[in-house]
């Protein structure tokens, strides 16, 4: 097992300032954690997709996995090393092994560094390549992501969004990571460019044997890249769909709503979509299942108990009282 994340929890507390604290009042509001008890395991060479909308906790999860933020509790273990327990120095050196491609290609590159400088820096800092071989390695990387060699002397502002994302991918690859986390890497790009980048990621994954964690809000895009899918809502992983299972057999009410609301190339897909009509500004309920405010099947246990994830066969797991009760009654 290459990467294991165990029970990661992270809460962004709303501090009320030092005056109430001095007065002895509670400093943190009781808020729902941004990430609650999220666990994941990834074999070497395997890919997993994480699907969720804004507020689902997927970005927090990605940041905790990449140790860009320290989780409040839980561990991230990479190839036997507990990364969460490392001190600043060793942690910095281990960072290279988990790389991230971020959503916004426009702000992810230092506008004052040429493409070549950006890539060279990675190689130099981590001493990955002998000095005399650096130029050649940079060319290799550019070629791998489909950019011309003369991109080396250009600045990011000379490139389009799709090309900049390729540069970001090249930068991530330069670190020779074992795990690549792609956090909504194509959401900011045009549709035809998305396809190019997705193909690139799929190719790199096969060619380099990368273990990939692919995050998106689009179920179909995720399926294309990473057959095993974890669906997140309200900071929790609510369903895990293994590779063999078609998307249509998703059981969690949220996943089903997501599938039903997906836009399609068919006129009339709107019928049956967006049924929920929930008051979207209502915050998530403080106790019980985070989805119960919008769930058509909510019943008593949902209000009090956060449903644990249960395997319902063949690696398909669902965190839902309704589903697990229903399937148990078979």
């Amino acid at each position: 097992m290459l990467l294991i994340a165990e029970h990661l929890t992270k809460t962004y507390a709303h501090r009320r300032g030092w005056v109430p604290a001095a007065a002895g009042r509670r400093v943190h509001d009781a808020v729902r954690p941004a990430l609650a008890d999220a666990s994941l395991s990834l074999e070497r060479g395997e890919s997993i997709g994480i699907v969720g909308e804004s507020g689902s906790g997927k970005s927090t999860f990605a940041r905790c996995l990449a140790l860009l933020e320290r989780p409040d509790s839980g561990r991230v273990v990479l190839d036997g090393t507990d990364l969460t327990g490392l001190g600043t120095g060793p942690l910095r050196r281990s960072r290279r092994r988990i790389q991230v491609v971020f959503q916004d290609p426009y702000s992810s590159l230092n506008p004052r560094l040429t493409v070549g400088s950006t890539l060279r820096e990675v190689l130099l800092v981590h001493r990955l390549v002998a000095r005399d071989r650096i130029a050649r390695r940079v060319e290799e990387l550019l070629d791998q992501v489909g950019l011309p060699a003369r991109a080396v002397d250009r600045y990011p502002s000379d490139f389009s969004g799709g090309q900049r994302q390729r540069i970001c991918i090249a930068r991530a690859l330069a670190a020779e990571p074992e795990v690549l986390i792609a956090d909504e890497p194509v959401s900011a790009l045009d549709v035809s460019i998305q396809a190019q980048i997705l193909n690139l990621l799929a190719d790199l994954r096969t060619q380099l044997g990368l273990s990939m964690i692919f995050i998106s809000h689009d179920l179909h895009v995720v399926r294309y890249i990473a057959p095993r899918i974890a669906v997140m809502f309200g900071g929790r992983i609510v369903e895990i769909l293994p590779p063999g299972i078609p998307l249509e057999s998703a059981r969690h009410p949220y996943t089903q709503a997501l599938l039903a609301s997906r836009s399609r190339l068919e006129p009339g897909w709107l019928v049956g979509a967006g049924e929920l009509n929930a008051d979207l500004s209502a915050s998530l309920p403080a106790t019980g299942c985070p989805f119960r405010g919008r769930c058509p099947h909510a019943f008593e246990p949902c209000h009090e108990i956060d449903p644990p994830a249960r395997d319902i066969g063949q690696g398909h797991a669902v965190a839902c009282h309704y589903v697990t009760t229903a399937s148990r009654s078979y």
Partner: protein
Amino acid sequence: MSAVSPVAATGPAQRRRGATASWTLRFGLTGILTVGTLATFAPLIAPYDPTALGLASGLQPPSAAHWFGTDQLGRDILTRVLYAARIDLQIGTIGVIIPLIMGVVIGLFAGYYAGWPDAILGRVIDVVTAFPFLVLVLAIVAMLGPGLRNFYIAISLVSWVAYARIVRGEALSVRGRGYILAARSLGYSDARIVFRHLLPNVIVPALVFGMSDFVLDILAGASLGFFGLGVQPPTPEWGVMIAEGRNFIITAPWVVIFPGVAIVVTSFFVSLIGDSVSDIVRRVHAP
């Protein structure tokens, strides 16, 4: 690999060519270089000794022998203006460089780490900027005693705050950008991130401010000279020349005019450079 078309047509070379055709910059640079050259070679080109007294009678208007006339002690004004350029350019340069380095470094780290280092810096900035710049400088020089060295100390102690404030503001906004997060995820050390990734992206406003600070420092030197707290006579310095000549404004205005014009002209060239620098950088590195 999917085919990717060649890089965009407007490459960096083209853009930079367009930018440096800026006449403002050319004019400013030429001007400052001229002043600098004249100052450097003052001993070679000045017709007289700057401190030589009473060569002719004092207060001679401009003539063939004395292009700028003579002052009340009979010294040639042209010579003194040239020699004074060395002092004033030095004041402007040192008076900017030291506070700039101090302020930028402090502002960078405060802005990058935010939290309490930034809170402390914020309070310091508030306190120092509550006082008028010249009043503080005067007070420090008054305590330490007159002279160029103490002037530099006073300027440094007061000026760095302006740079820190500028850089800290920029740093606070840039630290949240994607490429800083990317640099962290690549395992770069804080020092590397601050100096290689943060600094280049926040320094420009500080540099532009430095240009106007250059001018302010010369004026401050002149003001202190006016009070006798700056450069001590007989060393020529434009401000001191104006101060010493103030009694003769009506009767022999050339004593005051020429050093005054020198200050204005030098400041003008510097401000031209400052204007064009910010334009150029904005255009070349638009994200």
